[in-house]
């Protein structure tokens, strides 16, 4: 075991972040494309153009989400257990919405019936917009603390309700999530389609980009003024055997700003969020969607890292029993499991990036109406 336990715990916090960012940048983009599909495509051919820009890639991209889920299961079992069972109906809502994607992409164009195709188009819209919204709402609730506690045998008990999740701050977080992924998808469509879709995508990139920036700023103000954060008062040493019931946590105002005060360099994350989102909007307006997509990806990274840096080391704070909060030091798997998983990630993530790049390179082109017509029975 080359890495000590304490280091590995931190590394896994980073790695889960990497997987979530990977999900947002790749599959989040597909979700944005799905969200825009009914609005940017005015007829069947245009919609097929839009779908086929992500057609060869959405399935691989979705595995970022699946692997992030698997990695949370393996590296933070208690977080996986508490969050998925606590947010029961929210998770099922996201799951049922995700159902529409594999079947929507594959089945939509297999039948030449306008009602059939239009139904799947709205299915793809739901499959894009709903999970994007739900994941944002989930983050919004994590930041405010979740009403749950652990009993002496570490069984999680959730005491909130589904509708309690839909509070104003969480909805704002949902808007940020949906807004940024839609913008990201719009810039992708600007890069990979032809007129008139490109023009419409530009308009949407601008609208959703500005909306996201405003929502992100508002959330920042709200967070600093109106939301009590959490602080660890005492806990065992960082490398200790993880037990989430051995620490003392308090909820107090200003605690979510503590990391930025103690380590001012972490302010780089919210700044990256603003700069990335803003830069992406500008580049889209200046018809530079290629660079725009890169900058937009940085923006998404900034927004996600802001949520992480604000809460670190908290992953799932408890509002009803703060001592039950799950943090990166005590909600983790054993040293051996983290080590095995670390090496698996070190080997496979670079490989994944390599072959994913190869597939994008091979399929790189602007998808056109002419191409769809020519490949009527092959294309999605």
């Amino acid at each position, binding site marked *: 075991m080359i890495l000590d336990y304490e280091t590995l715990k931190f590394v896994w916090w980073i790695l889960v972040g990497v997987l979530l960012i990977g999900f947002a940048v790749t599959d989040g983009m597909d979700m944005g494309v799905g969200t825009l599909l009914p609005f940017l495509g005015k007829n069947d051919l245009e919609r097929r153009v839009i779908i086929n820009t992500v057609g060869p890639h*959405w399935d691989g991209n979705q595995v970022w989400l699946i692997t992030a889920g698997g990695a949370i*299961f393996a590296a933070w079992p208690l977080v996986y257990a508490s969050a*998925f069972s606590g947010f029961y109906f929210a998770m099922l809502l996201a799951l049922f919405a995700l159902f529409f994607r594999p*079947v929507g992409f594959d089945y939509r164009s297999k039948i030449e019936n306008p009602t059939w195709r239009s139904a799947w188009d709205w299915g793809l819209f739901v499959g894009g917009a709903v999970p994007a919204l739900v994941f944002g709402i989930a983050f919004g609730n994590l930041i405010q603390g979740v009403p749950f506690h652990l009993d002496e045998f*570490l069984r999680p008990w959730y005491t909130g309700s589904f509708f309690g999740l839909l509070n104003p701050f969480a909805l704002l977080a949902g808007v940020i999530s949906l807004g940024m992924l839609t913008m990201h998808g719009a810039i992708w469509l600007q890069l990979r389609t032809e007129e008139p879709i490109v023009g419409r995508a530009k308009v949407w990139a601008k609208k959703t980009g500005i909306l996201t920036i405003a929502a992100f700023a508002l959330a920042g103000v709200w967070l600093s003024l109106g939301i009590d954060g959490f602080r660890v008062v005492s806990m065992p040493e960082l490398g200790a055997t993880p037990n989430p019931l051995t620490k003392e946590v308090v909820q107090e105002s200003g605690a979510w700003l503590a990391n930025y005060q103690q380590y001012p360099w972490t302010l780089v994350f919210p700044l990256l969020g603003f700069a990335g989102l803003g830069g992406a909007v500008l580049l889209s307006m200046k018809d530079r969607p290629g660079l725009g997509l890169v900058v937009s990806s940085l923006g998404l990274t900034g927004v996600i890292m802001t949520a992480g840096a604000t809460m670190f080391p908290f992953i799932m704070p408890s509002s009803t029993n703060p001592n039950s909060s799950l943090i990166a030091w005590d909600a983790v798997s054993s040293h051996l499991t983290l080590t095995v998983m670390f090496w698996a990630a070190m080997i496979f993530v670079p490989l994944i990036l390599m072959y994913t790049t190869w597939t994008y390179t091979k399929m790189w082109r602007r998808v056109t109406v002419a191409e769809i017509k020519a490949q009527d029975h092959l294309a999605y």
Partner: protein
Amino acid sequence: MLDSTMIELSRWQFAATAMYHFLFVPLTLGLAWILVIMETVYVMTGREIYRDMTKFWGKLFGINFALGVTTGLTMEFQFGTNWAYYSHYVGDVFGAPLAIEGLMAFFLESTFIGLFFLGWERLSKLQHLTVTFLTALASNLSALWILIANGWMQNPVGSEFSYETMRMEMTSFTELLLNPVAQVKFVHTVAAGYVTASMFVLGISAWYMLKGRDLAFAKRSFSVAVGFGLASILSVILLGDESGYEVGDVQRVKLAAIEAEWETEPAPAAFTAYGFPSNADEETHDAVKIPYLLGLIATRSLDTQVVGLKDLMREHEVRIRSGMIAYEYLQRLRNGEDTPGNRASFEDHKADLGYGLLLKRYTENPATATEEQIKQAAKDSIPEVAPVFWAFRVMVGAGVWMLLLIVLGFYFNARRVIQDRRFLLWLFVLSIPVPWLAAETGWFVAEFGRQPWAIGEVLPTGIAASSLTATDLRISLTGFIVFYSILFLIEMFLMFKFGRMGPSSLHTGKYHHECRQESPAAHGGGATPATAPHDQAQ
């Protein structure tokens, strides 16, 4: 205590969604390799019919794959949503193979599947074949990791309970990988998937032959599938799952349940071919037994004993009593009395903690369970025997039936007279559902036969569930039933539609329905003329 209705509904939900998921998995596992074979022939010989075969069967593969992905998402979510305590209790061990499955296999499969469908025009022949091959390889690797996870549920090696973290922790990744139960399960499961895909291709090809349509296409597809199918069905039957039934207590119980063997009999035991097992009476009514056969099937030897259920329950009762002591000391340790004495006493009985937890179904505190509760727990430490007994027989019957069909199909195909054996061809068409019947009953035996355990000897199913309410489960289960029913209808509609259209759905202009449009007279004249243009093209 958790609501028992909620637990019951959680089990129904998991069983329904898992079995539904496995309607799509086996076809993916096998059809992927059949596509590889077909495309390899295309790349090596350059004959276009093999490209068309790859594309057409690939279309059906895609219709099936989409639902495999959809329903697989549920499996990943559901451990967390509905089996939260399970996720906490074993995530340290069980989560790792799932996460590695994502990193190593599912990423590869999903990244290349898109290029398989949409990359025909943009990849060279060899590149496309590589893509198809990697998709097939990855789907099988996926199965490997999932079965390593599942094998651990049956026979939890390479791990140990820690009272400090209140969970199972991995002690050896290698042992987890090399779990003998996982290995036999992997071979048995993927080979069953290959049989499923073979029967699928054989049945549909047989139908084209019966209709006299696209004969060249159908016969070639049949040939590929019958060879692949023969090798696969022999593997499934010869390398059956039974060899894994000697390892671990849960597997021993399962074996005895499969055979409804209540009393330990002298080796080699008789095989109960037929009968009505009853848990209440602890015997099998109206049993018809065949001497020696069970010993041979189960242990592959004449002198190894198969332990009967009554003896197993007696063993369990001893372990339940030991588990009560383990629970007592666990409580002390968790309450801060972390003395060397308590720790040593706990360690002595730790291996039986799971058996102590079986009492949770009857009492909040297993350490103080009554004699009656202990007896009841011991009686409930084996599954309902009758469903396991019958499901196993259905699976074996289906397997033997498919072996027979495939051998005959292989023989007549080798003699090049298969298209004249109309009765046999109809049997192939009608037997398309049979491999699914075998796969579903097989999984039922494996998982229902594991009860009352979620993780064998470690975690009872009853306490593995999330802290939800029965109402939560009623809503979610209804949601799954509605969604899955609609999806199933849509999938079957597309399968039948494209199955009926056959290779004409590729719109190459060479196949049956397209030829008919050009020359209706030829169609009226019977089967051979309609396919003639294509046969000549060969």
